[in-house]
């Protein structure tokens, strides 16, 4: 009895400690604009904004890829839609942020539902190819829209305006992106452990088995796909405000590939993995770019090393290190990836 009490006390302490660390990290992240101002390093804030925004897109992708087992190679489609959802109205003289947000949500939601309903008729390689095909279709659509910059893209003169504040302001953009990311991470964590997440995760392993428990699996997958599309759309809207520019390259497959890498590097199917993946990938890119001309080679080698380590992401590596550090054997029976 006392052993059980001792264990639960330990678990409660560990949870409190983890909560305190998370809170501290969030506070530090929220204070970053102050630090960059004091240190006169605006490029750090701009870099952090880029990390936060792409982590948001990767979190959305994690919902369908990490939990649902659906490798979407066309997620950049929604990032591009989000970016053009700001750039086109701005070009036409509409700077209202709420209008931009509504447009982005509507466009990515509708396109997500339409493409999802078709793509989710297939699975595996078929799904990868169809999702990629849709992204390419829209890529060429925007390349062909000469009125809106075509291949050269479209500059944004003024960012999305929310009352008196505008997303062209780096601090406001960063704080808004951070707040949205934190909400998305929390929502993702709750969804993962809710019935919705359990159905997605179970169906990723055995779709027919989940159906024979009474679930219309495709409906769940379409819903997850649409949610992911809308969240990625919001990330696209923030990204366009950061770059003050929208281009067809945002919809191209290298962007989808980057998002997939962030999810895989961080930890497929883990709640916080996409954020860690985005930090590692973009930080690695940034540091290597400054030190060597062949930075892509070394970045590739880094990813290869992670893959060859047999771990399924940074979270997995950290768990293994923690176990070694505590000199305790790895706990068997941890839920699978």
């Amino acid at each position, binding site marked *: 009895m006392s052993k059980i009490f001792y264990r639960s006390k330990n678990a409660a302490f560990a949870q409190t400690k983890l909560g305190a660390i998370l809170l501290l990290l969030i506070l530090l992240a929220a204070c970053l604009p102050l630090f960059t101002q004091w240190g006169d390093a605006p490029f750090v804030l701009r870099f952090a904004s880029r990390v936060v925004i792409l982590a948001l897109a990767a979190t959305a992708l994690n919902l369908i890829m990490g939990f649902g087992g659906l490798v979407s190679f066309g997620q950049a489609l929604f990032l591009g839609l989000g970016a053009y959802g700001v750039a086109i109205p701005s070009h036409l003289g509409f700077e209202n942020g709420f209008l931009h947000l509504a447009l982005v949500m509507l466009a990515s939601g509708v396109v997500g539902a339409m493409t999802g309903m078709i793509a989710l008729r297939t699975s595996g390689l078929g799904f990868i190819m169809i999702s990629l095909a849709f992204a390419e279709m829209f890529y060429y659509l925007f390349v062909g829209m000469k009125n809106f910059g075509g291949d050269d893209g479209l500059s944004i003169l003024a960012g999305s305006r929310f009352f008196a504040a505008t997303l062209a302001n780096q601090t406001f953009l960063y704080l808004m992106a951070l707040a949205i990311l934190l909400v998305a991470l929390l929502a993702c964590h709750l969804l993962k452990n809710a019935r919705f997440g*359990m*159905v997605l995760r*179970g169906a990723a392993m055995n779709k027919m088995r989940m159906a*024979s*428990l*009474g679930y219309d699996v495709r409906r769940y997958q379409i819903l997850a796909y649409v949610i992911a599309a809308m969240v990625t759309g919001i990330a696209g809207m923030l990204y366009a405000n950061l770059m003050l520019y929208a281009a067809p390259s945002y919809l191209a497959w290298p962007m989808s590939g980057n998002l997939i890498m962030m999810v895989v590097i961080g930890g497929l199917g883990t709640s916080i993995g996409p954020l860690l993946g985005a930090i590692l990938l973009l930080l690695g890119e940034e540091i290597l770019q400054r030190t060597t001309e062949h930075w892509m080679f070394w970045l590739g080698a880094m990813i290869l090393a992670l893959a060859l380590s047999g771990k399924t992401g940074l979270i997995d590596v950290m768990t293994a290190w923690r176990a070694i550090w505590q000199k305790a054997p790895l706990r068997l029976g941890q*839920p699978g*990836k």
Partner: protein
Amino acid sequence: MTVSNEIPPPKLLRLENVTLRLDQALVLDGVSLHVDEGEMVTLLGRNGMGKTSLVQAIMGIRRVQPSQDGQSQIWFAEQEITRLPTHVIAKLGIGLVPEQRQIFPNLTVRENLQVAARVVGAARPGRENAPSEAASLPIWDLARVEEIFPILRDRARQSAASLSGGEQQMLAIARALMTNPRLLILDEVCEGIAPIIRQQIWQCLTALRQMGMALLVIDKNIADLLDRADRHYILQKGQVVWQGNSQELRSHPEMLEWGVAGG
């Protein structure tokens, strides 16, 4: 008082001329059978005789084709389910413990049970209008299944993949019970299971039958089932070659040779 005993129990599951072809091969050839409310029926036969295909046809996993004698039809609780999708059939109240268990290895033991609990209440539409046996079936929830399989409570937070074969089988049965079925189909539940666990599973199934749940048990081993089941069907090359009760099966030892190993 004796009159009510003469009324035959309503047919819960009814298959008429069920025919199934896979890649031109005739897997099921006009199979007709039925399972009544509260009855335990076995489907016996050697490997490759079409037992699992029949289960898949019932669950809508494989689509049946018209037979030479007419339309293939599958009825459950007076409703035709031949063309219904799998999730709708499951919601009507058919629980399946599939061959090789097929638990979700990426979920914990508790999550495997919780995800199945979604259809509680909705599992038996028209429960109030159902025959008394069905209406009186207990409601299966987490506490109840963990009561009959206490090991699942102890392993609740473990990954389902880390369970032993016997424990996984218990989880598969418990998961099917969490859907609160009127009919539970068990496909080779004791294959590769230690004898002591097998006995526990048979005891559990006997208890379920006594509670009034209808059971369709697919197995190759008649020895454990002869005293427990009400009726038996023997499947040979996709056809029902014999049907009868346990007493009749005992008096036809040649049938044990036909379709059943270990008889």
